[in-house]
């Protein structure tokens, strides 16, 4: 179909020497296909190669003591990141736990389900969608960076607006040790 024709019009008659001119039609469709494939490849690899950025905002370090805001325990869920890619969560605060701590993994069927459930519950209770679930993420020294990024990702996926990274306390470390998540 696509062709490059270099046969020179079929050859004129006349003159004693008549060379046989063969038709030299080159089909260019394949070349065009290849060129478009390469373009698509380069277009995609240059944009995909740029790394994605997940923004975090931390609270001011010095103001830590003053900002121990009395946040409603009933709206708070504490997520403790332990070793072995597992985490433990409970509602309320460490001295007054409102639900028994549960161990879960990351991902759709793990913590995401629990977060969505609790989020709905809290909004249902307060009646105000702006007063939703507050999440306190407490990574222990046995967790790794991937766990932290995963849990922050879950925040984005479940659309939770109020969350923060805070220090893990001694009783919580005891909890992790008790459940074998502090190896």
């Amino acid at each position, binding site marked *: 179909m696509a062709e490059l024709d270099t046969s020179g019009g079929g050859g004129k008659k006349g003159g004693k020497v008549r060379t046989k001119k063969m038709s030299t039609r080159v089909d*260019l469709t394949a070349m065009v296909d290849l*060129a478009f494939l390469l373009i698509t490849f380069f277009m995609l690899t240059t944009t995909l190669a*740029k790394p*994605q950025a997940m923004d975090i905002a931390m609270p001011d370090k010095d103001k830590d003591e003053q900002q121990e805001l009395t946040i409603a325990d009933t709206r708070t869920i504490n997520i403790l990141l332990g070793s072995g890619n597992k985490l433990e969560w409970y509602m309320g605060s460490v001295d007054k736990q409102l639900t028994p701590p549960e161990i879960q993994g990351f991902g759709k069927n793990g913590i995401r389900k629990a977060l969505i459930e609790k989020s709905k519950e809290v909004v249902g209770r307060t009646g105000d969608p702006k007063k939703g679930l507050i999440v306190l993420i407490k990574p222990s020294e046995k967790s790794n*960076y*991937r766990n932290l*990024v*995963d849990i922050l990702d879950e925040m*984005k996926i479940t659309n939770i607006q109020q969350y923060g990274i805070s220090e893990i306390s001694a009783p919580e470390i005891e909890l992790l040790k008790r459940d074998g998540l502090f190896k």
Partner: protein
Amino acid sequence: MPRIKIGRKSTAIDMTAMCDVAFLLLTFFILTATARQPEPLPVDTPASTVKIKLPDTDIATLTIGQGKVFFGIPGQDIRRSLIDKMGEAYGIQFTEEEKKRFTVMESFGVPMGNLKQIIAMKGEERNKAGLQPGIPTDSVGVRASELHQWIYQARVATKELHNVDMRVSIKGDSKERYPEIQKVISILQDQNVNKFSLITSLRGEDN
């Protein structure tokens, strides 16, 4: 019965022009693809579903892997100003040649004492795995850590030269222990840099 003769016309389209356009576009995309610099510390970033791209300029990258921290910032003018300031802060004299070589180093991780050595090495030698031990993150007595200084001077340089606030990004290895990351975040909080970005690779929501 006489066969009905259907006149056949040639449906050949001359594709030469299309081919030319295709190769022009291809050349354009190949030339605008920036070549990647070899990293001294290969890091496997964890995946996340965020799709916001990282900006290209005025952003410092702290690469954290194997317990080491490497520092990198794009922009040759900023790097030049940075090495001047660090030289002043630590009382080290750099020659013009060394400063020029520094401005082409993308990312590095050595204590100030070994900086001259690293500058003197060639590109491929510098980026050999395991060679650079990382920038010290511990404070020395009352003096802030070297990492703190690098970040601070880079912020000053960016503000002076480009008149914008420098952004900070953290490129951590997935398997890195949390305390290492915590130390770096602490150093950033000490300077009141409370907003930064974590560099991640892309994944779908259902994974």
